[in-house]
């Protein structure tokens, strides 16, 4: 992969120039947390580089909470999303597989994805809820982005991940080939973060989670971790998850013009799998909680060859019941081991 170097000052003016003609979202700080906002041309607020994941998952911009799919949306604007964390770049791979790379392609997603440039950032200051290393994801992306940005001393290293990324840089003369030394130094910075994430997750053990969860359907098993009973079935974990894609379709049209609207759904909701006659195949909270985690660590692995969890930790940070999923999983896996 080609890696370029540009001074921070030149990068800032490059982005400022881009913001005059393109719609660029980037992370900004609000009460200590990061939220995506459109870069304004006055440049008064400071973009937060290379800290950690944003509060919103990337999917919010590619699979809106509620959107008409029949007829499909005609006007989808071009968009640059900057500051995407590695966990969300990993999540994007799942979104692509679900909505674009199968025999059936979601029209809005496909269109929007083509018109979106993804600029990812390395994470240098992960949150306590971050656990990407436990699920085989690193706090820096290696592929799946158009450009990746790593702040480096007073400069910026920019990895070019796609033709789209290359076009975004264009012929700008301020970019130079990065030196081997610069790249090695970045690698050292990255490993410090890797170690930090490993260290803060030392008490949790998700080794061979997929193998261990195969067939772990039993309601009784999921009654063991006491914390699950604190789940209020609010759907925060599924809404904030970068890979939860469940949705429902609502019919809003008439006999003259059929219309369908796609709305996010959550498998934690009691009505999620309930059928017309009123029967649900997942009648208890424990069945539904199990389904979500089995889906993340087993079903999606079967479907797409990668885990559905990217270790972003949003489901932990945003849980109304204060459930730490890492603890729940560690207990369930231990119980599986014991049986």
């Amino acid at each position: 992969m080609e890696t370029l170097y540009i001074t921070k000052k030149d990068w800032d003016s490059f982005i400022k120039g881009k913001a005059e003609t393109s719609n660029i979202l980037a992370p900004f700080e609000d009460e200590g947390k990061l939220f995506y906002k459109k870069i304004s041309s006055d440049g008064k607020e400071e973009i937060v580089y290379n800290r950690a994941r944003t509060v919103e998952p990337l999917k919010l911009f590619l699979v809106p909470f509620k959107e008409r799919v029949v007829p499909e949306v005609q006007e989808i604007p071009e968009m640059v999303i900057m500051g995407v964390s590695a966990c969300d770049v990993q999540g994007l791979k799942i979104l692509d597989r679900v909505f674009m790379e199968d025999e059936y392609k979601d029209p809005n997603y496909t269109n929007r994805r083509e018109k979106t440039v993804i600029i990812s950032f390395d994470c240098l200051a992960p949150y306590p809820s971050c656990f990407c290393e436990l699920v085989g994801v690193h706090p820096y992306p290696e592929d799946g982005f158009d450009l990746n940005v790593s702040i480096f001393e007073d400069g910026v290293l920019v990895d070019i991940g796609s033709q789209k990324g290359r076009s975004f840089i264009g012929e700008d003369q301020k970019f130079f080939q990065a030196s081997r030394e610069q790249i090695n130094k970045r690698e050292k910075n990255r490993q410090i973060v890797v170690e930090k994430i490993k260290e803060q997750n030392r008490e949790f053990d998700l080794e061979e989670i997929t193998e261990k969860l195969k067939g772990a359907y039993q309601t009784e098993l999921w009654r063991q971790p006491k914390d699950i009973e604190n789940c209020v079935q609010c759907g925060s974990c599924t809404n904030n998850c970068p890979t939860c894609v469940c949705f429902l379709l609502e019919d809003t049209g008439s006999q003259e013009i059929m219309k369908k609207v796609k709305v996010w759904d959550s498998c934690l909701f009691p009505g999620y799998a309930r059928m017309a006659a009123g029967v649900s195949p997942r009648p208890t909270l424990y069945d539904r909680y199990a389904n979500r985690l089995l889906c993340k660590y087993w079903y999606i692995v079967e479907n797409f060859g990668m885990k559905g969890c990217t270790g972003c930790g949003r489901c932990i940070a945003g849980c109304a019941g204060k459930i730490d999923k890492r603890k729940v999983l560690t207990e369930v896996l231990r119980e599986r081991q014991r049986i």
Partner: protein
Amino acid sequence: MDKNIYEPIRCEVKEVITESPTIKTVVLKPEREFSFLAGQFASLTVPGVGEAPFTPSSSPYDKEKLEFTVMKTGRVTDAIHNLKSGDIVGVRGPYGKPYPLDRYKGKEVLLVGGGVGLAPIRALFLALLETITNYKRIVFCCGARTPEDYIYKGLILDQWQKLCEKHPLCFRITVDKKDEKWKYGEGVVTKTLDGLDVDIKNSVAVVCGPPIMMKFTTLKLLEIGYKEDQIYLSMERKMYCAVGQCRHCLIGDLFVCKDGPVFTYDQIKDKPNIWA
């Protein structure tokens, strides 16, 4: 741009047939040809109300019309029951895996249908009839709660009976509870499997009906010697997209929409709450 995967084909309602107090058949004329194989399903949209998956009950060989036999159980099915000739509905599909008729060749095919579960079996039966020489024999077991609840009475009790004279075909007919006019068997549908004169080793069984019926029929079939991979079940789950995206229809790790709706029992026996 590809065709929108959620966009249904417009269909005109040609006729609504009352089959029983709770079951109706809607006869549709799609605006453009809609082909399917027996066992595959389609999503039927009542505009402005909702969409639900159903397996067509008409012959896959009939290119003129498309029929769905629907029990009134909820919001969308209520709206389907209220349809009138000339109304417009939407159909998209076909989706899912059909009955693997190639694997039924040379065999005795046992069909077991209960209540509205006779609908997909009817499409399968009509497909088998078209290629009847491929099969050794068809044994069709039909059940319903009462004679009044029987669907396709004109076919099962009359028209199709006549086919038995020229084809290797027989019917075993029962109701859970008979009335004074009923001249066939009484008892739940599993009772029709007692004394079955079928070479089980060289047979497949296809079952469709309410979950409780499928459960006890499967258990009975196993008891009389059918192997788990000789039993074909047509499964049902809550569903929206029908194309493996919305994830509502998962039975364990299997999608009813993509991996099913037809499964052999050995594929699903270890999955959670399969008879829900």
